């Protein structure tokens, strides 16, 4: 088997069918990308991953060019960098990429590339304001700012190839190109189910979380890994936390079981914890039926006293309890322990079978 190729003058292994991008990554050479999306078929649309292939007529997109045995690939030549830099300059002119006012500032692949290539001024004329589609945000969760969209198509691939919700696609042609929902309707009137996978994969600031606006910039937030509190799938989440508050939630990539995916509840339904309606003190019902605030000692003493009275009078089996399938394991453990060891009954259940 001759499964090697020459990567930057070094013999490197590859698997048959592997693209240059993946083979290079395995060989320790990182090639920058914008449109490449793991798990979806490569589109080769952004032209940032261009590499030189000996004998080829032009530079090749590493994400969509399969390696062949003995192929000579160069990722770090002048020609490669000039081409990549020019593509970045063209993308910077494709809209209005004003980082100061962008939610993605500090978490933007285009910004990273502009910085890497030391671009300090625009080489091409920016797209005219009047040629940019108005921002689409007629929905509670997702903002699509077309002035920042580089038409890489990652959102379209995530929607169609990963989560298969099939809500958005590439629309129109040429300079009028635009990512659209079916019939180019607003998101809340479309097939969109607001899983936010498009936002998750957007490499720039075109797609952002509406609820996260102003709550913390990437370098201010701390990421805390946790498990989603909704259904039983157990999706792994990053909570982006600023000043002790969740600014937004993203999925943990490559984690079991969700592999970087979330649904509308997992991504957007977290702020119940900050509701003003939360219970904040123990409450005891008075004989007139009204609740009054009580201290923990008073409330807990009352519960223990009533339980002891009932146990004495009617036996422990006159007390029953249901635990919570939403709360942590340790809480359910403690509750059944309370019932069995302290009260003395097996009358403990929860909504397990519904």
């Amino acid at each position, binding site marked *: 088997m001759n499964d090697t190729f020459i990567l930057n003058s070094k013999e490197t292994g590859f698997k048959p069918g592997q693209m240059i991008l993946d083979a290079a990554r395995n060989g320790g050479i990182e090639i920058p990308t914008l449109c490449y999306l793991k798990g979806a078929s490569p589109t080769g649309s952004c032209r940032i991953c261009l590499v030189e292939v000996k004998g080829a007529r032009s530079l090749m997109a590493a994400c969509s060019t399969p390696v062949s045995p003995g192929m000579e690939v160069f990722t770090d030549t002048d020609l490669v960098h000039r081409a990549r830099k020019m593509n970045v300059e063209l993308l910077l002119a494709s809209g209005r990429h004003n980082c100061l006012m962008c939610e993605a500032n500090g978490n933007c692949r285009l910004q990273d590339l502009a910085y890497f290539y030391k671009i300090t001024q625009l080489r091409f004329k920016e797209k005219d304001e009047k040629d940019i589609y108005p921002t689409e945000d007629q*929905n*509670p969760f997702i903002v699509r700012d077309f002035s920042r969209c580089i038409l890489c198509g990652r959102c379209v691939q995530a929607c169609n*190839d990963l*989560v298969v919700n099939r809500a958005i696609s590439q629309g129109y042609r040429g300079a009028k190109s635009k990512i659209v929902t079916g019939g180019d309707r607003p998101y*809340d009137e479309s097939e969109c189910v607001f*899983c936010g996978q498009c936002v998750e994969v957007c490499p720039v600031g075109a797609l952002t979380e509406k*609820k996260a606006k102003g709550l913390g910039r990437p370098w201010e937030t701390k990421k*805390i890994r*946790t*498990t*989603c509190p909704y259904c*039983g*799938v*157990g999706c792994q989440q990053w909570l982006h*936390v600023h000043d002790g*508050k969740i600014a937004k939630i993203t999925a943990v990539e490559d984690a*079991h*079981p969700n592999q970087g995916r979330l*649904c*509308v*509840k997992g991504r*957007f339904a977290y702020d*119940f*914890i900050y509701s003003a*309606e*939360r*219970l*904040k*003190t123990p*409450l005891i*019902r008075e004989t007139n039926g009204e609740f009054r605030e009580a201290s923990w000692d008073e409330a807990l*003493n009352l519960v*223990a006293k*009533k339980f002891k009275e009932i146990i004495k009078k009617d036996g422990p*089996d006159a007390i*029953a*309890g*249901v*635990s*919570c*399938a*939403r709360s*942590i*394991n*340790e809480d359910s*453990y*403690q509750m059944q322990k*309370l019932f*069995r*060891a*302290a009260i003395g*009954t*097996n*009358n*403990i*259940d*929860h*909504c*397990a*079978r519904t």
Partner: protein
Amino acid sequence: MILVIGSNMTEAHPVAATFVKDAAVGGAQLIVVDPRRTDLVDFAQLHVQIQVGSDVALINGVMNVLISENLYDKDYVDSCTMGFDELKKKVLEYPPERAAEISGVSADTIRNLARRLAAVKPAMLMYTLGITEHICGVNNVMSCANLQMLLGNVGFECGGVNPLRGQNNVQGACDMGALPNVFPGYQKVDNPQAQEKFMKAWKVKSLPNKPGMMMPTMMEGLTTGKIKAFYVFGENLANTEPDIHHVEHCLESAEFLVCQDIFPTETTRFAHVILPAAAWSENDGTFTSSERRVNRVRTVSQPPGEAKPNWWIFKEIAKRMGHKWKSDSAEEIWDNEVSVLAPALAGIKYARLENDGIQWPAPSEDHPGTATLHKDGCFTCGLGVLKPIDWIPPAEVPDQEYPMVLSTGRRLYHYHTRTQTGRCQGINELLSEETADISAADAESKGIADGEMISVKSRRGEVTVKARVTSQVPQGLVWMAFHFREACANWLTNPVYDPITQTAEYKACAVRIDKLK
């Protein structure tokens, strides 16, 4: 190949559904068995649109074909299972024509389904509450198991009988022994060795040795006076249980009701004491997912006001009843008690849960966890038991007065009684009210327009609700959820239960729909 039965996965388990859709788009066969044309049907090669509550008859019909056409996995059945002869005798009473009559699925489709299932190996069966929320829920589950064992599909990756769990930690609450018949780790309360072990661990002289009551019996006990005190932790029973009028009567009857929750709910109205608890991101702890994966939950902020972690509250009550418990954090509870006492969890410690969780059984700390149970058909209990099962109809079937079937479930944007999602900015904009989903044929015959307010009435109650005319629902069926209080399906549902699990028949009762006068 994936067989999805009684699961509206794209709404109730959206992320799991993305992987099923990926597989279907990638070429795997997908078969959806459901009375409704759920969104997943768009990706299916075959939609088997059964009548509500006919699962056993359909599966018996399919097994009849598998056996009479000799399509089942004979080697697997011979070496890994027992009870084949009894099963055979029973399913031979269900030729496709009889199964067709009961299930409303044509005999040809039943044959087609059986032949498709026999042609691909392994095939994965996934089910949700469409299987369990019937008076024959246990039989439905066992029928799924019968089918998969007959096909030789249990014990393999991408095979098996896979229930999708509804709540984030319903698996864990079971594992922890929040069940009337088992200690943590499914050790039976009437087993003397288990008794002794837990008495020693919990430093008590005795433990109750008879299984306790299940939830519906507890609630009934409130009305008869058998149960005096009821402790409800994080459940909104007044909305989630069938027949709300009756449920509220039960709650009202409690001599002493303690509610421990994060919000005031319809249930806490009946409480004598309400204890404020820490929520999801205010706790360190663990959840256990559908696939038995123990995952970490981490603290972001402190609970509001004086709210406290639930484990602390239980510990404090125990202290006031004369029991001093040592563990003083979720981590200590898990590492020093749970994983010490439950053999299947012995290898799971907080230190091992930093990244992806671990799937139990993980009996020792060097054990990587177990992804597939009953590996290669070697059942934990020895041989897989094939059980002959007869079909029974739902407890309440349509008649002249109540001519339609009501079936209930969940919708994408809300979670259960909206205690949480109803308080999240934006979610209510996407779904702001309940609807009664009906077919165009029924709408037309009643002169009901899409979006019109109608009456849905059962023997237990009546709601006024917006009609949603949709091709998802077949003629004769009304479909509703229980997210919104006013038009909650549980004003209508039937409080009848599976005799073994006491799971209520949320999926079938008789109703009538009428235009408002």
